[in-house]
């Protein structure tokens, strides 16, 4: 099973395994990644599941969706070209790394 490495705001890392196709926001919640809030439960309405996906991992995901694009402007910590809403992403079939922003609200 492939794994996700979460790089937490303080620089520490936490790895968890995830089935390909699993929702990344739900996987992060199940792994107790405290800075993923996900208040809207995956409806792309709250921007509190914001993560940074850097290369080479970014290319494993489809491009930012039209609604996701709108909502990323509400992210508490600055939006960058690596910004994604983890609720809109599913696990690819290999290992990935996600950087977690320091603030979500």
């Amino acid at each position, binding site marked *: 099973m492939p794994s996700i490495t979460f790089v937490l705001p303080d620089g520490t890392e936490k790895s968890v395994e995830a089935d390909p196709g699993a929702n990344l926001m739900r996987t992060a*919640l199940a792994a107790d990644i405290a800075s993923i809030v*996900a208040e*809207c*439960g995956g409806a792309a309405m709250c921007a509190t599941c914001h993560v940074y996906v850097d290369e080479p991992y970014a290319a494993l995901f489809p491009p930012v969706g039209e609604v996701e694009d*709108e909502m990323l402007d509400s992210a508490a910590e600055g939006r960058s070209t690596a910004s994604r809403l983890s609720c809109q992403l599913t696990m690819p079939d290999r290992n990935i790394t996600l950087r977690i922003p320091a603030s979500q609200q």
Partner: protein
Amino acid sequence: MDSGAELFDQATPHGSQPPTVPVFGVDPYADDFLTDPYADYEAFRDAGPVIRLSRYNAYAVARHEQVQAVLTQPDIFCSSAGIGLTNFKKEKSWRTPSIILEADPPDHGPKRRILTRILSPAALKKLREEFERQAAFFVDRMIEKGTCDGIKDLAEAYPLKVFADAVGIPAEGREHLLPYGDLVFNAFGPINERFEKRMASAGATMEWIKTICSREALTPDGFGSQLYAAADAGDLTEDEAALLVRTMLSAGLDTTIFTLGNAVVALARHPEQWALLRDDPSLARAALEEVMRYESTFQSFYRTTTQPTELAGVRIEAEQKIWVGIASANRDPRRWEDPTRFDILRRASGNLAFGTGIHGCVGQMIARMEGEIVLRTLAERVAELVPAGPPTIHFNNTVRGFSAMPLTVTAKAS
């Protein structure tokens, strides 16, 4: 009321079904069901992951896992055939269907994007201060009265002021908004006596709604005018802008009113939970989330299968209506510990009261903001919040709420 299930009989007209789907004959829109639906929901959940409601010839999912699965596969379980019992592919709708709520991809996304922008957390920040001021006004008025109605004086009065102002609706005629919302949510159920009665008296209301959804009727800076600005930018047609104003009014007002009412009733009935909130007003947002889980306003709606599919091992044909029991999912012990307990300290997020997936409520951040502000203001200003009589239930086919909650309130010592 509790109703046992029979097992599906191969000899019925739906003979192609596997015989293991439990069948319920109960009417989930009958008064006695709606008065306390929770025992029936439990029976639905315990019978199996997918059941049938024979009276309406529909499948039903009542467990959290299957409700979530249905809502996150919009290509298989679609909304464009209507999220009520009426199948728009076969029968005519009572009104032009909503172009967002009752649309599928790829039509859905562009409309959703525009509402997302208008109702995003960043956009709502500008409204917060005024919303707080208004909450203080209504709560102080309740305290002055001493004996008041938690529904009329707060749950109805507050969104009728702040939400209708935010959309940009004229102050005149707002009394039409409640019967309109009531009609819309009745219409997601069967064409029963309850719906017919509302429809029969709806003439003037429908006229008024049409008028105020027009460009000229709206204040210049509200959500409504922002929709017309999107039309000017070429992102919507003029007619689509009008329909989206209508959607905001029908989807955004009754729901919030009933949710605030359910919060007041739940807190008045659970003095120990009220005491927790009063002693720590910062619990307001979490308390609202638990109200939504415990007494979900929008109880159920439908999806329609676009193709033959399998759900939790049950084969379902194409073009089948599926009752989606979000209120039941929110009390599923497979997902929630001690689900019948109202506990504002629990982690209630992840509940499905706003739906989830691509149609998950686009107004949920403003609804949460209204709810949080009202509960925080109550907690900051009110000491005692005590029932002065039993609440009166409001019967509607798909939303759950109350029309009266007599209260005695006293001021917190400042």
